């Protein structure tokens, strides 16, 4: 899954630790999401979306594999 977390964080000058505290997860979880090693749960995705004031689909998007599967 692709996401724009790093960009959105940079725009708001938030560190990974700041965002982690805002959405009640560890900094490692935020990092793992950013680098694509962990897909967030739906509740966490909602919390992240709320922090940035954007819909989930504006932050998270299907990766190439999921898009290829959907196209089949």
């Amino acid at each position, binding site marked *: 899954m692709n996401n724009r977390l790093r960009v959105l964080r940079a725009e708001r000058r938030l*560190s990974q*630790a700041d965002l982690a505290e805002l959405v009640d*997860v*560890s900094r490692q*979880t935020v990092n793992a999401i950013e680098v694509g090693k*962990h897909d967030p749960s739906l509740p966490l995705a909602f919390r992240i979306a709320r922090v940035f004031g954007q819909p989930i689909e504006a932050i998270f998007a299907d990766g190439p594999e999921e898009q290829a599967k959907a196209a089949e």
Partner: protein
Amino acid sequence: MGKERAGRVNLLSWHGVNWQAMRERDRINDRRTTLWSFAWVASLALSRVAIVVGRLPQALHWLLVAFSLAVGIQFVRSYLRMVREADELLRQVQLEGLAVGFGAGLIGGFTVICLIPPSAWWAMAILMPMTVGYLVRVIWAARTAASDAE
């Protein structure tokens, strides 16, 4: 952040990894589970010594067994709570560890039982509770999820 030691193995932690940025709730649950695991080992060791060294009446023998089991159950309950309340990534790490551990126990145990003579039926005493416990928990969770869905 500079002093953060992400991913360092911590043998005194039930999370297995020492994350300085771990949430306070996870840290508390981790500590509680670790203490219960030590208490369980201590209760086993003390009960074993009392049973072997002392000539205990049968009733007291069973009381010590019940005591060790009670402490063990508390240990499992604290571990369950830790996993339930854990940070998402920690939970994923724990679940993968459990899956590998369970698989290793299952394959290793049955290999011993079936292929290494003489048959080590004692291993069944370890494997059966593990297997049955796993199945009961999975079936119960599946049934709960199904009833929630209705």
